[in-house]
């Protein structure tokens, strides 16, 4: 069964819940959600670099920072080229609120307990975000360049999901 993180749950609820976000978010709002989702993952990774000494966990966290910063830089470059600004919205706010609680939980852990919580959170978070991006966002994006950027980013994030799934599987075998 897929786990749901607090941030991921917030995203899932907002994407399908009473706000009807899948029908009402425009391209610039979806772009904002994507940027915030990456910023949250960078924040989780920074906590991992503070708290974990496990090489595979640290390598994964470094990759999350490197990749999400790269993707966000390209979203910013695209927005600049199109002369637009990503728009804050309820889904972005819900994501941030959910992430605060998860970050507090992670900061209270250390050692193997931290590694387990971080990796499981990363798996659930990527599963949820990737599903929302694939099923709710991409089909509804109007601008062709924005759609292409989301499709490219989704390939990266699906790679992350597979990577962390391997780490979680490996953790179960230790």
């Amino acid at each position: 069964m897929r786990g749901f993180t607090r941030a991921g749950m917030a995203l899932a609820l907002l994407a399908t819940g009473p706000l009807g976000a899948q029908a009402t978010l425009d391209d610039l709002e979806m772009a904002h959600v994507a940027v915030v989702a990456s910023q949250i993952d960078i924040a989780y990774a920074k906590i991992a670099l503070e708290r974990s000494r496990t090489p595979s966990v640290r390598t994964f966290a470094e990759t999350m920072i490197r990749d999400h910063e790269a993707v966000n830089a390209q979203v910013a470059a695209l927005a600049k080229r199109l002369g637009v600004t990503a728009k804050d919205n309820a889904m972005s706010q819900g994501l941030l609120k959910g992430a605060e609680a998860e970050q507090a939980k992670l900061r209270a852990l250390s050692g193997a307990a931290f590694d387990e919580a971080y990796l499981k959170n990363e798996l659930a978070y990527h599963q949820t975000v990737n599903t929302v991006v694939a099923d709710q966002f991409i089909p509804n994006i109007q601008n062709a360049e924005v759609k292409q950027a989301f499709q490219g980013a989704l390939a990266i994030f699906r790679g992350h999901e597979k990577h962390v799934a391997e780490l979680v599987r490996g953790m179960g075998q230790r």
Partner: protein
Amino acid sequence: MSRWRVAAAVLMMAAACHPAPRSPTHQVVRIEAMQFAPALVDLLPGDTVTWRNADLVPHTATGVAGMWDSKEIAVGGSFTLVVPEDGIGAYRCAYHPLMEAELRRE
């Protein structure tokens, strides 16, 4: 059979067993959507391979046996390797270890 004919036959057999070395080739591997394409490249030591990073994030091409390593290939960047004698075999991205590919001896 004359001695010359025997010698010619021996030479032809030797040539068949040891074909003349071909000129080095240059092949390009594109990195995109978290994949090396093509994932399998047939070559010989001394051939050249260029990896072009057309993806949204940095990658590496790193020999699994540890004989060569591109280090980071930036977005839009490239790395060229003259394949060393011991450089044939599997390689992967050090940042994304599920991205695997191979340089195979032809």
